């Protein structure tokens, strides 16, 4: 009996995926349904309040600002963190490039630093004092010191800078891996046909790394919309001036933990879930990735 169990090709796959099923049920399905239930309650008063949390959310200007900030940040990272790393990766992958390994290691350093360290370093680099690195640099060009983290534009710039700093290297590696799985014969053939490097890049590299691009796009959307810690460290807490650094998750954290409005926070979580699902569906539809994944 036991023997049949271990040798059965019918049962084995279920054993293999069992840890995943358990994880999904215990650590995703349960909390998500719990979160949905909580979002219709006021936990401190311990009562059901119907859709009141959601109604309040829709007229909550700060929440709308948080959504705006998160989406703006996400779009910024998409624009900066997909095309450029792809371009850099193809250049690094080219035969003309000497010692690419050295550069790859250097570009990867930021991803190895924790956001706690990175956020603190950038916060101090972009300090208000005239002696901070950023103000020294602009001072060199004759500008007076800027309060970098106090107005919306410059702090958006810094948040994007931190994102680029941390993820350019990782995305380069993702794209390099994708590029290296393209057979080099394709490029050779194209070169014989007289295609320029640029044409090779746009006609061969870009279409053939599309699966990688879709993957990077997916995780970038995910990471962009759920960004929190970068802002938390950069503004030394969840309270940025005029909420310029407040994100959806930051608002969830503020309501659920700082203000102990767990029900309201869970409503924020549910809306975040909806937004992410919607964006991903659109994205997968547009890139046509769903059909391909299924094989």
């Amino acid at each position, binding site marked *: 009996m036991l023997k049949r169990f271990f040798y059965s090709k019918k049962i084995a796959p279920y054993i293999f995926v069992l840890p995943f099923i358990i994880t999904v049920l215990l650590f995703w399905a349960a909390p998500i349904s719990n979160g949905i239930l909580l979002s219709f309650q006021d936990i401190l008063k311990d009562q059901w309040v119907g859709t009141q949390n959601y109604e309040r959310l829709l007229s909550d200007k700060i929440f709308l600002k948080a959504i705006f900030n998160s989406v703006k940040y996400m779009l910024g990272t998409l624009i900066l963190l997909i095309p450029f790393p792809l371009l850099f990766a193809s250049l690094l992958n080219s035969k003309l490039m000497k010692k690419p390994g050295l550069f790859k290691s250097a570009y990867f350093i930021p991803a190895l630093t924790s956001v706690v360290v990175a956020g603190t370093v950038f916060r101090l680099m972009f300090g208000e004092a005239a002696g901070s690195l950023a103000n020294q640099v602009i001072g060199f060009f004759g500008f007076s010191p800027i309060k970098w983290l106090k107005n919306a534009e410059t702090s958006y710039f810094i948040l994007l800078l931190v994102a680029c700093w941390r993820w350019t290297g990782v995305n380069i590696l993702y794209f390099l891996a994708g590029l290296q799985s393209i057979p080099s014969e394709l490029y050779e053939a194209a070169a014989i046909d007289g295609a320029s490097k640029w044409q090779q890049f746009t006609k061969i590299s870009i279409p053939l790394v599309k699966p990688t691009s879709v993957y990077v796009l997916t995780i970038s959307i995910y990471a962009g919309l759920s960004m929190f810690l970068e802002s938390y460290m950069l503004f030394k807490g969840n309270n940025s001036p005029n909420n310029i650094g407040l994100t959806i998750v930051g608002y*969830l954290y503020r309501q659920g933990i700082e203000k102990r409005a767990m029900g309201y926070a869970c409503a924020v979580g549910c809306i975040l879930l909806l937004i992410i699902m919607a964006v991903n569906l659109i994205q997968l539809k547009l890139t046509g990735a769903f059909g391909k994944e299924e094989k």
Partner: protein
Amino acid sequence: MGSRKKKDKAASIAMIILFSVLAILIVLPVFTLFIASFKPGGDLLQYGLNLDLKLERMSLDNYVLLFTGNHDYWRWFLNSIVLTVLTVFCTLFVSAFVGYGFAVYDFKGKNFLFIIVLIILSIPLEVVMLPLYKQISGWGDNYAAIILPFMAHASTIFFFRQYLFGIPQSILEAGRIDGATEFGIFFRLIIPVMKPAFAAMAILNGMNAWNNYLWPLLVIRSSSKYTLTLGLNTLINPYGDNYSLLIVGSFFSIVPIFILFVCFQKYFVEGMTAGAVKG
């Protein structure tokens, strides 16, 4: 032909310049941190973080403090190592196990389950953070609560499945003919050929575990269990020698993981390439 070579050479030099500039920009913040690690922590408050080399104010004092001082840094460091190693080990093992199931078998419900993998891949932990915390807050103050919920890690499973698509069916058949059980095949035949994939995922998961902040912050309660990120964050107040330790400790927290990365980088790219998302 000669002009072509010249052109190539020019392109090659241009590229090296481009990438060197990029490398300098990227390393700059870490380098600033490195410079600052030789200055008294108080200077950070006084002058901000910058690249000024004031030799008369620079010393190894911070490093002396780091290695001989009376503080918790090394306890955090050790905790982080323990947590990272445990996380990487458990995540890789469980995810490879599941990924193998998805890659080589056909079974009822597989497509449905795999869609769930894809969905979970795109749900941030933060969405379930509060209810999940409520759910496991009774587990007490231990690392299990940090590791267990994320052992079957969707993106790692996804990667291993991709990687294992490339495994020839003949290996499996040969194993079955030799009388190995389905699990025996996985343990004895498959795990050894997955080394590059393990290297790639070890680096990615290791990085995340080493730098993880939010979830451990919620789960861990006593300071004797703090990880490096939690501990460093407690130093962000100018009391005593805190800033000196913060700066030198932050810098040093990058060093071990960087050494590991440099050593395994080759396998990393190799593994990522083999498991790269294929159309």
